[in-house]
């Protein structure tokens, strides 16, 4: 199987000041495997170690131990960087350069063929809707405009892996929608996307895989659908069928009555399988069965709070 990103016991710690011996662990033996062609969302509270992971993957910081690969190549290989696009958290670019000059510089550093540079720069400026500002100096740009230019330089080389650190910050709702469209288009092209964000609803919409990190430790990792599907089974028992209701109330983890007087019961998956085999509930007219789905937001807070 091909992986866009893979880490093996990746660890990063910082030593304290000269007279302080305490060691701060930013990342603690991280093991993740993001399949090629997928969109991976990295979640976690501030200071969880998301940016540290990204900086390790981009070879901007050196891990204390462990190993990491991007596009199945060890981190640090210069040639593989030609196939990666990177947008850092709160980017700033040389204010003296115009958008066109900055993207031209980026294109040269990405080793794009000279004859393709102008066309490619125009193409990405169109995608991020910044063509009208191409001659304006970056120093005068708002945060959202800077973010758009950051996205433009990240997709300039039509990357196989796009690494985005908080790409939605600073964007208005229109900008957020545009970014999600860009991410989806990159995915359609076959690119893998690795990004971290605090906007969980957007992550849920676009990510195939999700990882939750807290204090440097990976708390959860898996397919978005799998992580959010584990909310048990919700049964609605008609008020006329008190006998079944009484039996199920004993097994339910949550029970309440709705406005019609029907019982609404939440059962764990395992409990559901047991009682269904005993009572054949799926074929009863008085019982309505629904598979429970929790939002990524619920899952995130439950996972993070469980650790606390």
């Amino acid at each position, binding site marked *: 199987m091909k992986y866009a990103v893979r880490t093996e016991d990746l660890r990063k710690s910082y030593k304290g000041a000269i007279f302080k011996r305490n060691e701060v662990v930013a990342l603690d033996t991280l093991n993740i495997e993001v399949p090629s062609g997928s969109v991976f969302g990295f979640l976690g509270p501030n200071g969880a170690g998301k940016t540290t992971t990204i900086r390790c993957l981009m070879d*901007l910081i050196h891990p204390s131990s462990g190993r990491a690969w991007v596009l199945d190549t060890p981190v640090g290989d210069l040639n593989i960087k030609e196939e990666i696009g990177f947008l850092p958290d709160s980017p700033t670019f040389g204010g003296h350069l115009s958008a066109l000059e900055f993207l031209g510089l*980026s294109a040269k550093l990405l080793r794009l063929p000279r004859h393709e540079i102008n066309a490619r720069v125009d193409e990405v400026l169109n995608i991020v809707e910044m063509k009208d500002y191409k001659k304006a100096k970056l120093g005068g740009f708002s945060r959202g405009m800077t973010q758009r230019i950051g996205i433009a330089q990240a997709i300039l080389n039509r990357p196989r892996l796009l690494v985005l650190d908080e790409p939605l910050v600073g964007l208005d709702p229109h900008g957020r929608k545009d970014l999600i469209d860009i991410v989806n288009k990159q995915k359609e092209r076959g690119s893998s996307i690795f990004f971290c964000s605090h906007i969980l609803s957007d992550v849920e919409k676009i990510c195939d895989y999700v990882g939750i990190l807290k204090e440097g430790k990976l708390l959860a990792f898996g397919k978005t659908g799998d992580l959010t599907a584990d909310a048990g089974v919700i049964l609605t028992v008609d008020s006329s069928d008190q006998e079944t209701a009484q039996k199920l109330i004993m097994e339910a983890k949550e029970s309440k009555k709705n406005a019609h007087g029907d019982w609404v019961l939440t059962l764990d998956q395992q409990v559901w399988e047991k009682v269904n085999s005993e009572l054949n509930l799926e074929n009863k007219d008085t019982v309505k069965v629904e598979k429970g789905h929790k939002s990524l937001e619920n899952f995130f807070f439950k996972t993070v709070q469980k650790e606390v």
Partner: protein
Amino acid sequence: MDEIFAIAHSLWKRLLAAKVVYFLTLCAIALIGITKMYDVLMIGESRNLMVDTAFMLITVASMLTVISLAFDIPKELQSGIASVLLAKPLGRTHYLIGKLVGISWVAMFIATLISIGFLIIYGVTYGAPSASMIKALILVIFSIIPMASVVLFFSSFLNEAVAATISTIAIWFGYMLFAMNGFTVYDLSVFNMSAEAFYDDNITNMYLLKAAFSAVLTGISMVCFTSFIFNKRDL
């Protein structure tokens, strides 16, 4: 190579876009010109005053230009610009060489502008400058390479203010210890603000070549040393 020149060109463009560079260059040339007015005060020795002033100003202007690198690199590291650049297929050593080449171009350009201004003023006032004067000016311009490499070294791991201060001290003492040109330019002294090289008729072409070679060698050695440290650090 393209990456190195892209970084160098970006720095060149940024520094030469500042109007203050041209203003200070004009001020330096004007200061050299007005030394002629001190003929009476110098008891007929205003020619020496002009030469010393010119050499001192070219050295100081070069030094101030290369010191700007002590602000440029730490600022790029702090603001994240360096992260964006180094996430591309640009080696950290290439980044450093690009900065060194860029700042050397700018400092040499400014030093050459002031030198040309000085030679014109000197030529109009005292007649054609001697070959040894031109060679001495070339030696000063060569000294920009080791000067810039010293600043590059300190700015790769210190913050702006500290890097600028320590670099200035290092360059100043480097001149005193004749190290700025690989121990070959023994007679350019910033301390007594004089240009003794001008009065030395023995600057041969071989000496000039040796000085250039030493300057480049010093620069390369410093880049290797800086690169070793810069590659180890987290950005």
